[in-house]
């Protein structure tokens, strides 16, 4: 069966520091991959999605970037974190555009 792993589960970082969140999927090949951010009271916002290695689409201009170095690996990065980057970050995968998305357990990021 397919599984999705996200780490770390929680992260506290100072303003201006770099960020790297990692997500990997097992049990499937060529998945669509997504990064969402969940802010309190604002639901989930799609940040990036990828339909293949090296193919990244950004939905919201921001301080973050994403990369897909391998088929089942999706990385969310920042060179310098802002206070506004705090939130709950969720990675998800699907078998295609219209297939249900399956989420990881998320990373709670706090910026001090």
């Amino acid at each position, binding site marked *: 069966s397919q599984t999705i792993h*996200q780490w770390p589960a929680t992260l506290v970082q100072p303003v201006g520091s770099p960020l790297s969140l990692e997500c990997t999927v097992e049990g499937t090949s060529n998945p*669509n991959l*997504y990064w*969402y951010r969940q802010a309190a*009271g*604002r*639901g*989930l*916002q*799609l940040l990036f*999605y990828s*339909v293949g290695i090296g193919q990244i*689409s950004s*939905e919201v201009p921001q301080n973050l970037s994403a990369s897909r170095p391998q088929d089942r690996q999706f990385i969310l990065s920042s060179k310098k974190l802002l206070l506004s980057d705090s939130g709950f970050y*969720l990675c*998800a995968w*699907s078998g295609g*555009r*219209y297939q*249900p*998305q*399956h*989420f*990881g*357990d*998320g990373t*709670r990021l706090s910026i001090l």
Partner: protein
Amino acid sequence: AQSVTQLDSQVPVFEEAPVELRCNYSSSVSVYLFWYVQYPNQGLQLLLKYLSGSTLVESINGFEAEFNKSQTSFHLRKPSVHISDTAEYFCAVIPLSGGGADGLTFGKGTHLIIQP
């Protein structure tokens, strides 16, 4: 572009009472619809989905949702709730055509609070 409105941010219900969580969407094209549930400090889990066919869809834990195209709604219901149903519930859509992002458009969520 699509939008999803969950009319209630919070719904308190007594245990064993029925509940309805409302979801309305706006889209210029047909959509697939989903309900996800999020327990505290966890990711989202797919609860049920409407892709085509019967407009009434059911989940394995007693929830059901009915797609109403004319009212552009996909309300979630359960006839008798349990304490374990306490969670955040998200309605989401994805358009069937028109290009755009592959990702889901989510509502802001409804916090279901079950009172003993």
